[in-house]
């Protein structure tokens, strides 16, 4: 049957027309809207498979969890603001710091970094959707259920209370009876599934769906960073899947993985957890580095200095990130030689990180920097991350680490690297990409307030913690005696927390006001160079009216002004995209994206429900497996499009 093609045009140069007329564009736009529009209403919302609407939910949900984690932090700071305070008791305090850490790591940092990728990457590489749209929806629902599970438990006084890394034997059946740790272990299961799904989506999409001409050496650095993060997820997360499964089994069906009496091992938990846990830090950091590269390029108006060195640094950071896990275990009786190796690896990571920082400096030095809010957050990143890096070099030395292990010095260190290294670039990215997501600019004036309050607040909160740690204050204590002399510094730290809250309020206010009355941004408010700026803001559901063709690393700067070479001839009567080759992005074949469906939600509810039932009885696993297989049967049952093509005998033959 005849298909509705978007402007077929022969490939012979003589027959090529100069430009596509407005009328033709309008015609294609109407047809794409007809076939891609998912409609409004609750059911359309629940069944959506658009990468943008799913990623937007991811971002909003992650920010809600960030706010909840922040409120927990604020409660802790109130409690610690003076000695012998009784604002919260020891049991609640244990739950609060555990839920705070788990929220920030599992429900905020990793999901939000993936979510920004799931939103921006397909637009930046010029494709219409992620490779597996239904799977993508499943990932979000699993993540949502996991997060809700943790908070329902927390608000009913069943929040986990053994710290965010749940060390055994404390987290084992003997010392943590009840369901608190099981909640933690199953929340992990949910977020791991979601994380792995996101990683598969991002890698496949970038490998096979780049715009023609976007060879490996023309991929925007942010896209590279998302791909590298995804590979880290693929190799790191299986360790925590196995570990949390083993912990849950020890607690539920009497296995003995971590029970020394029956040949199990408490240190095994630490190895498995940190084999995931350290790469996790880089899973959070690497996309942030990519965001910085995007922002630096745009606001210095030049392409990044040392692009190959930047990509290779990202990759080597990822590799080294897998050989650092033991530096979390320096206080355990591991062989000296092994510990020294991990010290060396921990110090070596400064090399690729340093290369990147110097490349950014060279870019800024030789460019024409514009000090927008996004760019300010990048500068804030450099300052905070260097401070956190310095304390990191200190604790990579074993004798020093033994002195400050489990003190507030470590708390200061990782908040500097995580907030400086991830949250600052992320906020820069919000200011940078907010216009692309909403069509409105955030207020720059409020943005400057947001930045300065945040920068001051973070330093005020966490810098005194270095001294508290050196004075011997252990982490995770719910209060302390006045004679210890920790009161003043703790009070300063708590005042800093108030400043951070103020900056958060400014940010929320800025978003709310700008959404209603912000300056309309137009397609490319920053004069940036990458493909996401070659489409309207917010991007239409099909992302690009025509798939763009890329001739360089900064296509919008190197094309003749206002011109864009494009692909024509994709079908408009179904969700069709273009598949290109892995290395050089040469067109290979066309590809049909799956249509919206309710199945991902049903699968998440059934699979998720049974994971929750498994907290109480092992039958949850059996029921869940049966239900899951049944739903997967429906999911994989081949769909026949009404206008399907009959198979050709030779796939390469033209019709």
């Amino acid at each position: 049957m005849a298909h509705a093609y978007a402007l077929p045009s022969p490939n012979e140069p003589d027959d090529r027309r100069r430009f596509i007329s407005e009328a033709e564009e309008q015609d294609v736009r109407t047809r794409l809207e007809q076939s891609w529009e998912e409609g409004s209403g609750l059911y359309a919302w629940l069944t959506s498979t658009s990468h943008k609407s799913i990623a937007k939910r991811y971002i909003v949900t992650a920010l809600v969890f960030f706010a909840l984690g922040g409120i927990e932090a604020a409660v802790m700071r109130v409690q610690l603001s003076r000695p012998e305070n009784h604002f919260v008791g020891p049991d609640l305090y244990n739950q609060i710091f555990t839920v705070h850490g788990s929220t920030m790591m599992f429900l905020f940092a990793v999901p939000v970094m993936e979510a920004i990728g799931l939103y921006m990457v397909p637009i930046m590489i010029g494709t219409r959707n992620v490779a597996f749209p239904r799977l993508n929806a499943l990932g979000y629902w699993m993540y949502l259920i996991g997060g809700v599970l943790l908070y329902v438990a927390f608000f009913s006084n069943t929040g986990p209370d053994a710290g965010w890394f749940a060390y055994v034997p404390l987290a084992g059946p003997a010392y943590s009876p009840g369901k608190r740790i099981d909640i933690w272990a199953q929340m992990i299961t949910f977020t791991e599934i979601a994380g792995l799904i996101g990683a598969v989506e991002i890698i496949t999409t970038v490998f096979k769906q780049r715009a023609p001409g976007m060879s490996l050496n023309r991929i925007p650095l942010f896209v590279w960073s998302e791909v590298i993060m995804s590979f880290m997820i693929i190799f790191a997360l299986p360790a925590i899947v196995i570990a949390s499964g083993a912990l849950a089994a020890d607690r539920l069906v009497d296995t003995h993985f971590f029970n020394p009496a029956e040949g199990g091992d408490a240190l095994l938990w630490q190895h498995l957890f940190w084999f995931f846990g350290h790469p996790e830090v880089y899973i959070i950091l690497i996309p942030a580095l990519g965001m910085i590269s995007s922002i630096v390029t745009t606001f210095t108006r030049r392409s990044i200095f040392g692009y190959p060195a930047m990509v290779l640094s990202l990759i080597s950071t990822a590799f080294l990130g897998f050989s650092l896990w033991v530096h979390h275990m320096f206080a355990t009786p591991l062989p000296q030689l092994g510990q020294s190796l991990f010290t060396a690896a921990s110090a070596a990571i400064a090399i690729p990180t340093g290369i990147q920082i110097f490349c950014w400096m060279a870019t800024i030095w030789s460019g024409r920097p514009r000090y927008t809010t996004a760019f300010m957050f990048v500068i804030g990143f450099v300052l905070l991350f260097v401070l956190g890096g310095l304390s990191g070099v200190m604790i990579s030395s074993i004798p020093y680490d033994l002195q400050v292990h489990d003190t507030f010095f470590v708390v200061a260190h990782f908040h500097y690297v995580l907030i400086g290294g991830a949250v600052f670039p992320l906020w820069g990215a919000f200011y940078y990409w907010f216009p692309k997501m909403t069509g409105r600019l955030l207020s720059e004036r409020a943005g400057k307030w947001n930045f300065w309050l945040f920068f001051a607040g973070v330093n005020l909160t966490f810098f005194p913690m270095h001294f508290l740690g050196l004075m011997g204050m252990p982490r995770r204590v719910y209060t302390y005696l006045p004679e210890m002399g920790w009161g003043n510094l703790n009070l300063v730290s708590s005042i800093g927390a108030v400043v951070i809250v103020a900056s958060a309020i400014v940010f929320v206010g800025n978003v709310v006001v700008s959404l209603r009355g912000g300056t309309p941004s137009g397609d490319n408010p920053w004069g940036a160079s990458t493909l996401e700026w070659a489409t309207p803001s917010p991007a239409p559901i099909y992302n690009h009216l025509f798939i763009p063709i890329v001739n360089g690393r900064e296509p919008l700067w190197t094309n003749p002004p206002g011109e864009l070479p494009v692909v024509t001839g994709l079908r408009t009567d179904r969700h069709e995209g273009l598949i290109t080759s892995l290395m050089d992005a040469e067109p290979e074949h066309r590809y049909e994206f799956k249509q919206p469906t309710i199945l991902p939600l049903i699968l998440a509810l059934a699979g998720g429900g049974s994971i929750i039932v498994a907290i109480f009885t092992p039958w949850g696993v059996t029921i869940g497996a049966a239900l899951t297989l049944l739903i997967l049967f429906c999911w994989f049952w081949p769909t026949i499009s009404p206008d399907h093509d009959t198979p050709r005998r030779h796939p390469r033959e033209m019709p």
Partner: protein
Amino acid sequence: MKRRPAFDAAALPDQGFSHHAPIWWGNTLMMMIEGAGFAILVATYFYIRHNFDTWPPARTELPALPIPTLNVAILVVSILPMWYVAKLALKHDKPRTIGGLLLLCVVFGVVAAVLRIFEFKAVHTRWDTNAYGSIVWSILGIHFAHILAATLETLIIGILMFVGPIEEKHYVDITVNAVYWYFVALSWVALYTVIFLLPRFL
């Protein structure tokens, strides 16, 4: 923004096989995830080994060999019909032959699953006996889930080949399913070696 048509995709084919197909990458990444999981399980196995003086632990018999060896042979042999299926699918040939061979693979899968139940007995330990039993049962159980999943997937495509209608993308699915089948079968060769053979030498 003025758009200049520079490439016409209308003439491109609808599907690509092997690494040209996104689903092939999805499957490859899934195998990497599961392969990493298996590697972690094996590492855990050897870690736990160090907590015991003898392996298997005292008062535990060596795992029995006959049924597990038969099962690993069945899984390896099942690769042959699957490989032939993939070859036919590349040529878009004979849906009924493909369907028949797929159903044959399903029989292999069902037999392997049934034998797996006896393998749980062949290890002469229980999951709650000690850490040795825990890790051995985990490896058996997790791979069991893989056999079930691969068999079910093969069953669905096998039935489809008979009831139709068949689209070109289904042939791509068949070749990707075959790769997953190889993974399930061959990963068991490694895990079988760890669970059933190595205790004789450790």
